[in-house]
């Protein structure tokens, strides 16, 4: 019996190792037999003239648009005359760490998807190559009004060009609002608290609650709600104050008071403290939730994943006092592709980048609803995406890009956890705010001292003029 077992073991081992060798020999040249969500290799179909083929690796963490991007890349690979082949790799949630690992182990891609939140970090780590030498007058004219300091430009050098972004809105169930006798979505936080209470009083017997958020990860919940409430009220949405160049969580804490009120009223769906975003959407689609706040990806999600019969819509977030003193921040915007400083084929990478930024692709990207275009010439002529509920998320007069807040790593709990603890179990909000200010500003001054971050206070900063 043992001989047999050993025999089987040996065969397995040998089969495994030969196959493994075969595997490792054919990693790059051979295209993967099947396309997958995780990785897709698109290779040029025409037998290109012999000459040095330039393979450009493009990494992105966008998943929602990958079918379209794959198609666009296929066209590029088939039609470009420079013998360039672009390889798309779609990475997942650990994108930033994947990029770090790649750059630290000589596997860096040639092109990277940039988000306004990570561009500064990538520049600071020396991952990106400046684009200034490639910019034509035509491109400069097309993008000039939306190229921002500390978003596209760092230290006077340009690293990326804008395409689209995400707006954030209050997502509300119109049927429930109507049944509760509420005519319009709330304009102020006090109204939001009152509306949530009314809806809960009306619907609690059927398991209907006024408000919900994915508080399993408080920071993520607040980044899709408080951020927008603050920016529309005239304050930076992540607790930073551009006027002083310091963190000030004072305005933030005012918003938190209203959240706490809703919690104390029992207007938030029970179990929200461990609620993830998707179970929350499922409950919203089932008509159990009055309202929440989220990104302009919601219409697509309800179309594809959580088909619903309820009548819902998106509306501008409420503000602190009902007055709009700022603008609703368009997030993940302002940047799209960037060229790796380590790339050996920067010119080829730029050719692809230029291809991606042509009008027809930017327009299609907007019209298909993958993101809301922030490039004025595109936004002006593109048709609006045909997805139910999208109309509430379109860029209007109250939406704009904001300068980026500096990224810092404070000691101890982040503001999301600290504030949510107050919402759930109380405490002294002033002390919590003071503690956050101290820790975040401490981390900020350390980062400035190390040269990782530069901060210039702008006393004239006016959120109403963005």
């Amino acid at each position: 019996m043992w001989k047999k077992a050993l025999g089987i073991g040996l065969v397995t081992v040998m089969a495994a190792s030969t196959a493994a060798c075969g595997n490792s020999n054919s990693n790059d040249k051979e295209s993967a037999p099947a396309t997958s969500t995780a990785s897709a290799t698109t290779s040029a179909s025409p037998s290109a003239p012999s000459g040095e083929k330039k393979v450009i690796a493009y990494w992105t963490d966008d998943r929602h648009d990958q079918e379209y991007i794959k198609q666009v890349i296929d066209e590029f690979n088939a039609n470009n005359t420079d013998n360039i082949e672009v390889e798309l790799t779609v990475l997942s949630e650990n994108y930033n760490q994947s990029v770090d690992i790649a750059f630290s182990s000589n596997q860096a891609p040639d092109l990277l998807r940039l988000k306004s939140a990570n561009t500064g970090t990538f520049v600071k780590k020396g991952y990106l190559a400046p684009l200034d030498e490639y910019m034509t007058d035509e491109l400069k004219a097309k993008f000039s009004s939306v190229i921002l300091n500390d978003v596209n430009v760092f230290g006077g050098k340009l690293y990326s060009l804008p395409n689209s972004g995400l707006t954030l809105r209050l997502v509300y169930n119109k049927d429930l609002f109507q049944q509760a006798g509420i005519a319009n979505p709330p304009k102020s936080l006090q109204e939001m608290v009152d509306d949530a209470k009314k809806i809960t009083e009306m619907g609690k017997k059927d398991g209907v609650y006024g408000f919900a958020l994915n508080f399993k990860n408080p920071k993520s919940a607040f980044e899709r709600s408080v951020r927008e409430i603050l920016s529309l009220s005239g304050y930076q949405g992540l607790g930073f104050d551009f006027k002083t160049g310091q963190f000030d969580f004072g305005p933030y804490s005012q918003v938190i008071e209203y959240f706490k009120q809703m919690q104390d009223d029992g207007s938030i769906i029970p179990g929200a403290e461990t609620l993830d975003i998707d179970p929350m959407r499922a409950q919203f689609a089932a008509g159990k939730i009055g309202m929440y706040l989220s990104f302009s990806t919601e219409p697509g999600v309800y179309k594809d994943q959580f088909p619903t019969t309820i009548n819902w819509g998106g509306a501008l977030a409420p503000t602190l006092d009902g007055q709009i003193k700022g603008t609703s921040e368009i997030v993940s915007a302002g940047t799209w592709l960037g060229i790796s400083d380590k790339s050996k084929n920067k010119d080829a990478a730029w050719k692809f980048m230029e291809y991606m930024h042509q009008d027809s692709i930017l327009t299609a990207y907007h019209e298909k609803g993958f993101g809301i275009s922030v490039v004025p010439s595109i936004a002006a002529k593109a048709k609006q995406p045909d997805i139910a509920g999208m109309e509430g998320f379109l860029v209007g007069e109250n939406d704009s890009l904001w300068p980026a807040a500096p990224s810092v790593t404070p000691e101890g709990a982040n503001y999301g956890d600290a504030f949510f603890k107050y919402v759930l179990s109380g405490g002294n909000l002033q002390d919590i705010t003071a503690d956050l200010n101290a820790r975040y500003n401490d981390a900020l001054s350390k980062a400035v001292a190390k040269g990782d971050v530069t901060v210039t206070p702008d006393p004239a900063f006016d959120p109403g003029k963005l």
Partner: protein
Amino acid sequence: MTRWGKWRENSLFLLPSVALTLALGIYPLAWVLRYMFYEYAGYGQETFIGLDNFERLWRDDDFWASVRNTFVFAGGKLLLTIPVSLLLAVILNGKLRGKHVLRAVFFMPTVISTAVIAVVFYIIFNSYNGMINQLLLTNGAIAEPIAWLGPKFAMLTVIIVAAWGAIGNYMLLFLAGLQSIPHDLYESASIDGAGPARRFWSITVPMLGPVMQIIIMLAIIASLKGYESIMVMTEGGPIGKTEVMYLYLYKLLFPIAGSGTPVDQQFGYGSAVGFATALIVGVITAAYYYMSRKMNKVY
């Protein structure tokens, strides 16, 4: 056999183990021992900061709360897992119809993806329409839904989920230990008129001693180290009630990305935390090993 020949054989047999342990066990340890005195974000400059990380650790209330949570979690998990799995192993080691099927059934939870099963348990336990609450509400056992994943009960729930995934594991280990007990011992005891209980206490327990000592030690270490099921169930929440120390460490190194600005990885402070957690686990394991040494002396 010459001494040289013996030495060569010994070295040959030990070499792979020693080489792997040094390169991938001891070298990382040395790395941590160095970086715990540094501030390092994984890129750019490394700054020597002396004992600052430990000073921070000392006043890091969240870390110490996670240590307390670890003890509660590990204790609860062990209390549920060990007796049930031992009992299952003893029963399924006997003559019982369908025991092979039952073993396979009890083994199944240990092979299913934690991320996936967490979703299922979420559907079972959630407050607004979870199955347990529905059951209790329709029975009239409770009037209001219980927040199984709320601050009060979340720890209990993650313990149950973790134990659910571990029982089959220890059942198998115990079974393997039971297999090694010579069967004639039981037969002669039966002939002498000993009932199942007598046989359990006078043969099974002592003969299982050495294996049991190791199994329980493995269980202690595993339950102190385990955080994956918590990570996917609650991410340590709500408000840190289920944050265990290895999860706390994990979050320092893999900060959860949101739509806001990214947070740096903290390798320096992470090393200090890693060192402290290792010390805690080491002390507990050593203490257990010392206290349980008589289990090994049955032979």
